């Protein structure tokens, strides 16, 4: 297996280990990115329909900033 260095007789095991690491890191990152997009879209749709928490509506009426969830 040619990688610019000689990995010896067990090169396939070394390349497989790094390949699996890339797979795991990519899967974790993709899961989080896709989930973020999905949650952001759901929140935007709900807020566009006027859905807010009661505490936020009260704060908006009284002109305060509301740090709720």
């Amino acid at each position, binding site marked *: 297996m040619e990688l610019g260095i000689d*990995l010896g007789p067990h090169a396939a095991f*070394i390349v497989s280990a790094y390949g699996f690491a890339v797979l*795991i890191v990519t*899967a974790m990152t993709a899961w989080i990115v896709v989930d973020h997009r999905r949650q952001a879209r759901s929140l935007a749709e709900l807020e566009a329909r006027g859905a807010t928490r009661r505490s936020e509506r009260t704060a908006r009426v009284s002109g305060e900033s509301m740090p709720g*969830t």
Partner: protein
Amino acid sequence: MALIDLANPSRFRALADRVLPWLGVATVVAFAFGLKQAYFAPDDYQQGATVKIMFVHVPAAWLGMMAWGLMSLAALGTLVWRHPLADVAAKTAAPLGAAFTLLCLVTGSLWGRPMWGTYWVWDARLTSELVLFLMYLGVIALWRTIDDPGRAARAAAVLTLVGALDLPIIKFSVDWWNTLHQPASVFRVGGSTIDASLLMPLLIMAIAFTLLFFTLHLAAMRNEIMRRRVRTLLMMQADAAGGR
């Protein structure tokens, strides 16, 4: 911003938005440096080039255990202090911990085959690490089984604290039992037994993987906060529609 302000999920989310790009860049830089060091690291006199597998395997093992340790602290936060972000932290750390533990198990097997002549052996270190992976799956299943996040958090917290008993078993298994797995060689009384030319890439890769964990964990926590906000708003809409 005072530390107590971070207990507020919206403020935490705003902080995550600001910190994540920097953490992401630091992770990429650390991996670039670590992989370069790993690439040019000399062969071990016994393991040959397979020592390069250790630069992935060892950090993955540490992070698999660290994630459970973090979940245990968060479990205390849930059960004792009822901290609003504690169960968010625990829930989002579980899949990441499971992934790192799986990475540890698979890369360990890939190293074991050429070095020990077998992919797997039921010795105490390998078995206790497998138990950790199965416990991660159990906690993830528990979170998915119970709809109410509060109830799920308390059940998962109890399971997490009981499961924390596995951490010292993993760590000291190589001392308490006669195992095929080698004893501690980095963090041990009397200092590391690894040559500096191999220890440096190992530590830099460990830093890179740790930065990756915190980047992904922070991003996953932000997602979970958003998911809970969506859930709250949907329930309020359903209540409003029902009250009409």
